[in-house]
């Protein structure tokens, strides 16, 4: 066991998780604070016969992984705010063409060049709505390296299951912090492989005809089935169409395949919710000081609890409603101007009980900060 303990950065934990999940093609472009993912993979991918491709820009890196996914590979790119903006059109392409891929965004301060070496959680809504057009998307996050590893593996599994891009939304603190990672044993975490068609050569294969269970088996480029892939609305052959019924059906399919499976996609952790009168909801690095504060105040008898979200999108509104049903106060701790708090307000019965505790200056929010917010919310003064 001790041989499997590593002391590393969150970015490296992500790269290790990706390798565990079977990543064999990565394409990226240098950007702070995600660069270590590319560096780690440029060293370790070729050791297992995989490919590391440094493209001329962020857009090209996103496009290249889509191309490599179509030949049957597990693919990933990693970036940060400005690069995530640049990738949005191609992310939309992967949504429309239903290409499994994983996109890591290690968040830094924005907008624009912003605060490159400092933490932020300002891209939560961009992960959901960054590309144009109606669609749905899966976004996962994590607050510690063990979970970064696990969520990265999950991201690959969900990308294959739902034939969709999955966003891994980490942040600068988690990405650059060093802590322990216990490497899971082989087979300890189940892996989802590519679902390939069993259509024989010469039999018509429809790349965009869902099976009864909603999944769409794929066929690798270079294999025996030749078909068209496009970012236009398309029919079951993958050929462009603007027929209203085909457009409506595909749009619904792209949204429903994710929104109808919120329950299966939702990952979360809960701490002390059983008796909590005040429930904190947090995610990513902000969940760490929140948990610290919750535990230290519980020792003084305060009935506080924490719901840590790991799936941000599709938003687990049902989970929030259920867990927060008896809470007097619901406090969302996040490092932005209030992106998840809006979703929480829409999810719960009494939105007037929902408050935001945030920090937006590039520094990690502290237990003292959160405690101050709580005192104000409780009417006890700062």
């Amino acid at each position, binding site marked *: 066991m001790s041989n499997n303990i590593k002391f590393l950065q969150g970015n490296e934990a992500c790269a290790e998780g990706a390798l565990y999940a079977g990543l064999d093609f990565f394409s990226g472009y240098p950007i702070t604070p995600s660069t270590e993912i590319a560096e780690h993979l440029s060293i370790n991918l070729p*050791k297992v016969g995989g490919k590391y491709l440094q493209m001329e820009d962020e*857009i090209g890196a996103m496009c290249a992984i889509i191309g490599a996914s179509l*030949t049957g590979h597990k693919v990933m790119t990693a970036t940060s705010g400005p690069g995530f903006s640049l990738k949005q059109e191609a992310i939309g392409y992967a949504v429309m063409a239903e290409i499994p891929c994983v996109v890591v965004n290690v968040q830094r301060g924005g907008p624009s060049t912003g605060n490159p070496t400092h933490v932020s959680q300002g891209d939560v809504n961009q992960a959901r709505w960054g590309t144009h057009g109606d669609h749905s998307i899966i976004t996962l996050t994590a607050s510690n390296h063990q979970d970064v590893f696990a969520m990265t593996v999950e991201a690959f599994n969900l990308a294959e299951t739902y034939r969709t891009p999955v966003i891994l939304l980490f942040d600068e603190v988690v990405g650059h912090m060093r802590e322990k990672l216990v490497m899971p044993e082989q087979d300890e975490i189940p892996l989802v492989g590519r679902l390939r068609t069993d259509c024989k050569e010469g039999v018509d294969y429809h790349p965009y005809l869902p099976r009864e269970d909603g999944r769409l088996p794929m066929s690798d*480029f270079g294999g025996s089935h030749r078909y068209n892939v*496009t970012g236009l609305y398309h029919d079951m052959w993958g050929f462009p169409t603007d027929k209203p019924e085909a457009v409506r059906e595909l749009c619904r399919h792209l949204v429903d395949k994710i929104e109808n499976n919120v329950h299966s996609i939702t990952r979360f952790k809960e701490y002390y919710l059983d008796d909590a009168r005040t429930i904190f909801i947090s995610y990513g690095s902000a969940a760490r000081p929140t948990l610290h504060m919750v535990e230290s105040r519980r020792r003084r008898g305060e009935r506080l609890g924490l719901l840590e979200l790991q799936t941000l999108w599709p938003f687990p509104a049902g989970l929030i409603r259920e867990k927060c049903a008896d809470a007097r106060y619901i406090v969302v701790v996040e490092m932005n101007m209030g992106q998840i708090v809006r979703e929480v307000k829409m999810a719960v019965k009494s939105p007037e009980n929902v408050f935001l505790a945030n920090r937006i200056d590039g520094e990690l929010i502290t237990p003292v900060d959160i405690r101050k917010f709580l005192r104000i919310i409780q009417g006890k003064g700062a």
Partner: protein
Amino acid sequence: MEDKNYIRERFFPHIWCPGCGHGIVLNNLLRAIEQLKLKKNEIVMTSGIGCSSRISGYVDFHTLHTIHGRALAFATGVKLSRPELKLIVPMGDGDALAIGGNHFIHAARRNIDITAIIMNNRIYGMTGGQFSPLSGYGTRATTAPYTNIDHDFDVVELAKAAGASFVARTTTYHVKEMADILKQAILHKGFSAVEVMSQCPTYFGRKNRLGDAVDMMEHYKNSTVRVGSKKIEKNPDLIERGVFVEKESPEYCSEYDKIIQKAMGTSA
């Protein structure tokens, strides 16, 4: 000629206007592929957005119709992940050299084994006739109503400077030459860039009073010469056609295989 075998008839008729040069390019590309006896399953055609990019839908290969300007980036991912596949990337001049200019020069620099075909009709046709980076100074377009003050550049010179190991130019008039050049380009190991001057009578021709498709093709006949021709000394305005660069140069995917060997500790 068994062109029909390579065509997805189900998806016809095509979108191109009467007189468009792109059909001639498609015809000669399929001719080249047939003469090379390539298997359909080993060809991946990747394209971006524009009239020319619709070629990919019409042919019975693995086809990837992507986003504007990025076809070469997608193709790079396909090629590096499965180097045994043949990558053919038809692009328009705007697609390849305006929005996609960066990918073009870097694919050339990397010398990855992809065949890029730039179907240069000097206009954005699909959106209705706006000037492109190759329209040239003094031309007219729907967005250059008072004439165009943007200078064009020479695709061949750009590709050469960027490091492409095969560079050629031909026109839709010179069909035999086009098929031969495309064959050479596909066979070449490394990045090959082929500019095909292709007429757009609907927009570029009409806006610039160049006559119909036949007139425009006749102009290709009269305004171009084979590379190295003496005629160009008397008339420097003539445009050269033919193969400008064909050199052996380390190919990206082969080089990456060496990286894998180094990383695995199995290289000599």
